[in-house]
């Protein structure tokens, strides 16, 4: 009973802060988000040093969503190649996404799956939550029916598949089945799937589960392109789509209360910038993307749900 009271008082406290006039007017422009927590799975699927840009893609996005409030415990990061401490790296222990950029591999980075652990099997295990019982919490996607999940895949892809580690493939059917299993197990509220690879629009082709919004860096018949090369390191350092995504997040979404909507995000990389047409799939997403905040997926705020009836939590719950 005491806990119920505590929850009520927390709700009343947060409402008082938010109930200022301006905030209410802005809120009218958006649908009420139904989620309470945010999770992200960021996957770099490519091995080898020359795929530096895929690692920096993931790291750049990681820092952006972390800045917007998604904690490390809610981000599952998979990096297939050890780029920062690679012996070819002229600046050991660092990763840069731009020639004059900041180091993305500082002491605040937590990589959950790395090296040979980045496999199709492990990726599907993360999504479906079917792990060996020994798997630590940091390697699990502990989502519930109130979680908004961001899945970001980058690497080399082809029509209907994504290459993992240069030795196996994640097909679009595998991905669709995994998402469907998540839906059946009530493991998400809304999901955003982003694929940044060549021919990436094929990756979401078979996803039929409700409340899934899918984006891709290129259409099925197109290639995706990289953005910047660092001649000191000797490799391309970031891909175009992710570069403009991170740019958008850093410039337009400065804080959690930003009013940038998903349509703004979708428009952030037009064909003249990306050099490929970005793919969007909205038919399983019931909301109007103009009425959805970018921070519903890329940020995380503590959103409280109102309880209208009294709930008595039994001993089993507290055990």
């Amino acid at each position, binding site marked *: 009973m005491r806990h119920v009271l505590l929850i009520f008082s927390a709700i009343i406290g947060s409402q008082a802060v938010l109930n200022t006039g301006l905030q209410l007017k802005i809120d009218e422009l958006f649908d009420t988000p139904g989620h309470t927590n945010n999770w992200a799975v960021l996957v770099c699927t490519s*091995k*080898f040093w020359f795929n530096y840009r895929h690692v920096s893609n993931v790291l750049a996005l990681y820092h952006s969503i972390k800045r917007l409030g998604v904690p490390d415990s809610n981000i599952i990061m998979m990096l297939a190649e*050890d780029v*920062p*401490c690679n012996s070819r790296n002229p*600046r*050991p*222990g*660092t990763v840069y996404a731009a020639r004059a950029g900041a*180091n993305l*591999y*500082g*002491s*605040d*980075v*937590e*990589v*959950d*799956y*790395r*090296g*040979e*652990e980045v496999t199709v099997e492990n990726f599907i295990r993360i999504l479906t939550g079917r792990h*060996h*019982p*020994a*798997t*630590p*919490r*940091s*390697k699990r996607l502990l989502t519930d029916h109130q979680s908004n999940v961001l899945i970001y895949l980058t690497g080399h892809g082809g*029509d*209907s598949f994504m290459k993992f*580690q*240069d*030795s*196996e493939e994640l097909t679009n059917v595998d991905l669709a089945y995994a998402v469907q299993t998540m839906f059946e197990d009530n493991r998400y509220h809304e999901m955003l799937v982003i694929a940044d690879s060549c021919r990436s629009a*094929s990756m979401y082709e078979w996803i039929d589960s409700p409340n899934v919004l899918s984006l891709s860096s290129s259409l*099925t*018949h197109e290639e995706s392109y990289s953005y910047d090369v660092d001649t000191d390191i000797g490799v391309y350092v970031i891909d175009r789509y992710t570069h403009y995504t991170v740019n958008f997040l850093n410039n337009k979404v400065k804080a959690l209360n930003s009013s940038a909507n998903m349509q703004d995000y979708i428009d952030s990389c037009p064909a003249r910038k990306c050099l490929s047409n970005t793919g969007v799939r909205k038919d399983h997403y019931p909301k109007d993307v103009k009425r959805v905040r970018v921070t519903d997926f890329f940020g995380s705020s503590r959103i409280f749900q109102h309880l209208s009836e009294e709930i008595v939590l039994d001993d089993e719950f507290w055990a």
Partner: protein
Amino acid sequence: MRELIGSLLVLVSFAYGLIEHFDEKVTLTPVRNNELRIRFSDRFESIYVTSVESNIAEVNDFLTFPRIIQELLNRYTVHKLTVTMAHGRWNLDEWGLPPQPSAPAGAQVFAEFEADGEKDANERMKFLVEALNGVLCTSISHIKVVTAPDFVVLENHKNQKRNILKRYGVLSGETTCTENLTRLRKLLACKENGLSTLLHPSKLYNSVYHSSHLVIEQQCEKIQCEAKMEVGVTVVTRNPSQKGQRPWSFADVFDRKLGSQCKIARSSQIDIIGPSGEITTTDIRNLTAISGADPFDVSIPTAAIAQKRSVVKAWSSQGGFEQQHGMLTVHITNDYSASKIQVTQIIPCYVHLRYSRIHWKCDKGGNPTIVKVLKNSKGSEAPTLLQYKMSLSAGQTCELIIPFDKHLLRLEQYPPDANHGMHIPASSVFVEKSQFSYSIHSNAILVLLPVPDFSMPFNVICFVATAFALVFGPIQLYSTLWLAPVVKKSQWGRKVHRAILLVIIVFCLYAHMMDINLNEVRRGIETYFEKLNELK
């Protein structure tokens, strides 16, 4: 006010019978004209009283000892656990005795714990390794573990205890990077001040060699338990003193100043090893000239190269020139006094040992008496453990020659980048002198295994299937049908059938020549049907 809270905390902890200490130390040793050996060591001690009712230790109060480590100790009833991660190779000739516990390239885990039998121990080890992955941000799930080494592998695990099961594993390919250092720092009592401010990745990974280790142990007597933990980082980096010509400071080495003092540490020492082994100790907690809150730099006068203690040397090499046979040779050279050694070599399952031809070859006085243990664990993917115990006379060199065969593995046993080769872990040598003992590691060996063309089965299936389909399909059909006598009856059905076959063959050839993707064809058909539906 802060001091008041501090003393209150101490009071509370004494009341509960909890005593905790935290010591931090950094040791700087100039090892060569242009290299500097830096060793960080953070030691924790915790003495606590367990509740009388239950035998399982339950602790709820933590001052400096990390709670996650205490939970690990209690959950898996660990008595002693050593984890090392290293990158690079320790140069025994120039840098002297390696940091103890000695670390091979990659990751190493040695665990001593209680369990109900061997099977339970294997299960526990699996959970323990996964828990370590969570604590240290490593990815050592596929470490190959050997059961209970009979001889000593690591210096700090030399005491044999009864009723305690041991597990040992090495993973040579494991990388260690910033995220591991971050996790180690998170275990420390002072994370943002004290000597740990120097544990910053920007300079530490720009080094010739770096290794880190975590050693935890717990001993319980009746209701009083003593838990100890040591977090250590060793780095060999460029010496900023320009061949001992100019004084240098911490900012030159670490690219940053020392943060404020760590108030809760019992001691925070800076040791500098001089040319004849003398140690200059400074405790930064006793420095009165600094205010305690602001970052400060420590200047160090020119120091000559520290004299190194002679050590037993070990290195591994690979022989053999073709794809089938190979030979691993472990070379061990003794220093200037007689020593007892215990050699441990783990051989992974992907090379097949020729047991009958494993032998030792020694110079100066021939082969000493050798006690050996060979353990071939059950299970197809379990590694083999070879251990030897012998005495070497002064200056003697011995070679352990291990011939092996390379075989083709099953497809799923190859790593993603199979042509890179697979590692045979470094061998460990435990050296016992009359006064002291230590362990050293040789280098890991990269074995190139015969790698099949992974696309070959696919190609063969495609080719054979295509050939069969052609031969028993249209070729047979047309070769027989064309020669058949003309029957006057109308054969429209047959002609339509033939026409359909012909269209399919022509389309297949066209699709092949034009490089048309099957997925595109499917999509084309789908959109065509969708258009038909819209017409209605």
